[in-house]
């Protein structure tokens, strides 16, 4: 459950970045490129987490799922931190003035949700293995 919702939140992180790229940031050097890469990475990780990786990857499935979840958490957390920093000081030459408050809120919500849900998934899975 947490894995599926976390995967959807990760897809949401990517979708928000792609939407903001087309809406505002496509002309901003580096930031625009990073937004597209964010979408690509989030889409790959989110879809992979939705897939039955354990069945498809066999023996290495569980380890792969862990890596995918950690990758998604890393991507979402990095996005959150980059936004936080760019609101306070220039990041890659760009300081975010808050052009689109709704977009910023959507980004924050999806990032926090992805980190929290996938974190819960990993913790629950490790506890289940121990017991």
């Amino acid at each position, binding site marked *: 459950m947490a894995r599926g919702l976390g995967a959807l939140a990760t*897809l949401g992180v*990517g*979708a*928000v970045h*792609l*939407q903001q790229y*087309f*809406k*505002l*940031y*496509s*002309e*901003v*050097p580096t930031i625009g490129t990073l937004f597209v890469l964010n*979408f690509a990475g989030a*889409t790959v990780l989110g*879809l992979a987490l*939705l*897939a*039955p990786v354990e069945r*498809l990857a066999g023996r290495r499935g569980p380890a792969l799922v862990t890596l995918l979840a950690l990758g998604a958490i890393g991507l979402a957390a990095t996005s959150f931190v980059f936004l936080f920093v760019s609101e306070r000081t*220039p990041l890659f*030459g*760009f*300081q*975010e*003035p*808050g*052009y*689109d*408050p709704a977009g910023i809120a959507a980004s924050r919500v999806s990032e926090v949700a992805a980190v929290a849900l996938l974190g819960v998934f990993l913790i629950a899975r490790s506890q289940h293995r121990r017991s």
Partner: protein
Amino acid sequence: MKKRLLTSGAAVAATLILAACGGGGGGSSDSGSAAPAGGGGDTVAVKEIDGVGDVLVDASGKALYSSDVEADGKVHCTGACTSFWEPLTVGSGTPTAAADAGKLGVTDRPDGTKQVTVDGKLLYTFSEDEPGKVKGNGFADDFDGRHFTWNAVLAGGGSADSSSGDASQAPPRNDYGY
């Protein structure tokens, strides 16, 4: 099973992409361009907006802004700046304005387009505005090492007070940069 899975995945991805693209405004599109002369409303009109005053607007009703950096009449908002602040331009026609809008003019931009001015102020629309809203009043940002402060242009040549406008959307007044 695998085929079904791939189809489902592709459907999810396609839906996300379509949803993401649907909200796009097309950063440097020509939505800030003025209507062709003689094609209907004035290039620059005047509209009373609550809490701000008689604001200059483009043919679609979007508020028009100028920046302190361009008080010298020279174009400094170029490149990424125009993703957020769209120059009000005219094609081959001559811009028209409401009687009380101010003295109309045209300035050549570096990209060859012609930007409309009122009383020497270069006019822009804000990408996050809708007709009847003034979300960009008092907005501050930085491009190419220049610090811009944007204010809605009022009829008669004045600028709106930075504290007026759509308070719910007003950005913090920090130093922003690009």
